[in-house]
């Protein structure tokens, strides 16, 4: 029982990180048809933001804020200087641009900071566990689940209640008509990138809380996973991204926990095999995005 509950907690907290990252990809994809492979580097930027904030001995909450702000700023800068000039390009052109942005940022981290990983010391209070009587729950997984839930709630409020949020949902369906209403395309796109940056920043904080370090390649694996999650969910669908993120997290933890010892090195193969089954069952993903018109 104890182990089972523990695995569920792990699955939800890992799935939550994938969900936040997949959402970041989906928010941008739904509006500009860009699969942003530089999304992982936003995480890395957030990680270094946190690292430097702690290095100059800012209080921990400021370090968290720095992570999110750095990622958001990086998202806006890449939009302004890399993706906006390529706006008229087709999907392949945009995809290649994102590879280029990703590669440039990685080289900058490797040469400008260090190719080695940097330790990000976390407050000691975070390393403990809470005793609930019948079982222990780690503080980091618990905070991670709470943070994910709060982020999803805040994003939902933003998308439903604010004009910009509504405009983003409308842009995903019919960008041309949105422009006819007088709503500036550049502004909506910039906000989409900012939102994806914030989500990457939050995900980076949760990711670092589990491993305690940052390195130039930090974002690569989680964003690859997030891409898989976004596809499981239905590329471009926001609720799909969340569903896909949790599905992938749960699959990974389940296979990790219940595969026989000898098969464990092949865990990812099992997970991806299962993903293929899901996609055979639902080729457009769990919650497909509505077919949209784009300008």
């Amino acid at each position, binding site marked *: 029982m104890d182990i089972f509950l523990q695995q569920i907690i792990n699955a939800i907290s890992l799935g939550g990180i994938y969900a936040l990252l997949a959402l970041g990809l989906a928010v941008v994809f739904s509006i500009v048809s860009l699969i942003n492979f530089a999304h992982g580097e936003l995480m890395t930027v957030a990680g270094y933001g946190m690292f430097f904030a702690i290095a100059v001995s800012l209080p921990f909450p400021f370090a968290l804020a720095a992570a999110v702000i750095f990622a958001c700023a990086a998202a806006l800068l890449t939009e302004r200087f890399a993706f906006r000039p390529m706006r008229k390009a087709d999907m392949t052109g945009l995809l290649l641009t994102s590879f280029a942005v990703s590669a440039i940022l990685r080289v900058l981290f490797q040469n400008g900071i260090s190719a080695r990983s940097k330790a990000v010391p976390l407050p000691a209070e975070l390393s403990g566990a809470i005793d609930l009587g019948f079982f222990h729950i780690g503080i980091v997984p618990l905070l991670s689940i709470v943070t994910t839930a709060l982020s999803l709630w805040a994003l939902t409020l933003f998308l439903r209640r604010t004009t910009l949020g509504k405009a983003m*949902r*409308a842009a995903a*369906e019919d960008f*041309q008509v949105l*422009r*006819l*209403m*007088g*709503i*500036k395309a550049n502004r909506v796109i910039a906000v989409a990138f900012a939102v994806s940056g914030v989500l990457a920043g939050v995900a980076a904080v949760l990711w670092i809380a589990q491993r305690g370090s940052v390195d130039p390649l930090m974002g690569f694996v989680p964003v690859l996973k997030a891409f898989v999650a976004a596809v499981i969910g239905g590329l471009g669908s926001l609720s799909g991204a969340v569903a896909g993120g949790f599905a992938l997290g749960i699959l990974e933890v389940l296979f990790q926990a219940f595969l026989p010892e000898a098969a464990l090195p092949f865990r990812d193969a099992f997970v991806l095999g299962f993903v293929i089954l899901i996609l055979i069952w639902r080729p457009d993903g769990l919650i497909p995005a509505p077919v949209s018109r784009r300008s």
Partner: protein
Amino acid sequence: MLEVSGLKVKYGEVEAVKGISLSVPRGSIVVLLGANGAGKSSTLNAIAGLVPATGKVTFEGELLSGQPAEDIVRRGISLTPEGRRVFPSLTVAENLHLGGAAHAAGEVLKGRIEAELERFPILRERYHQKAGLLSGGEQQMLAIARSLMAAPRLLLLDEPSLGLAPLIVDKVFDLITDLRSKGLTILLVEQNAERALEVSDHGFVLQSGQVVLQGTGPELVRSDLVKQAYLSE
């Protein structure tokens, strides 16, 4: 009010509009007639800034050519595109809100939404429903209401009666004359030539991207070309 001269629209190598000139006087209803592919929609889209065009478009004496769609609607020209194109997963309320959000805020915006709900009582009933769940006629009402949220002085209507039941078509044309009586100027593209000419002050007949005939409503109804091609007599 609106003056278009030598308007050309090219999609790659294909020239959809080959130098159209027309004018829309203030307070009038002007209709563009023509077969599919004659360049009617392209003309409206070019005026609204959705597709790049060459030639000159002036509105109330100001040059509009080359401005993006976002700016043209701020000048007072609103386009209700062909096929209604409401945002299907957004509610009626959200569709209306977005229609006016760039032009008004707070109480003014609320007032405009209220005015549209007065004009279209059916939208009040459907206020919190997703626009995609509305019937075709209701979606057309929503699309027009959403365009009116910008408080335009010139409304461009692209095929507002397309695919609607005859009773709803009547409503749409009643609405068009009603809007004009309240001071709005309307440039209309219609397949339903008979009905369109009834309500129009002036019409232009387009053929492969050029104006081949123009005149007042009654003149066009009597012309052989229009009779043969567009009226079922």
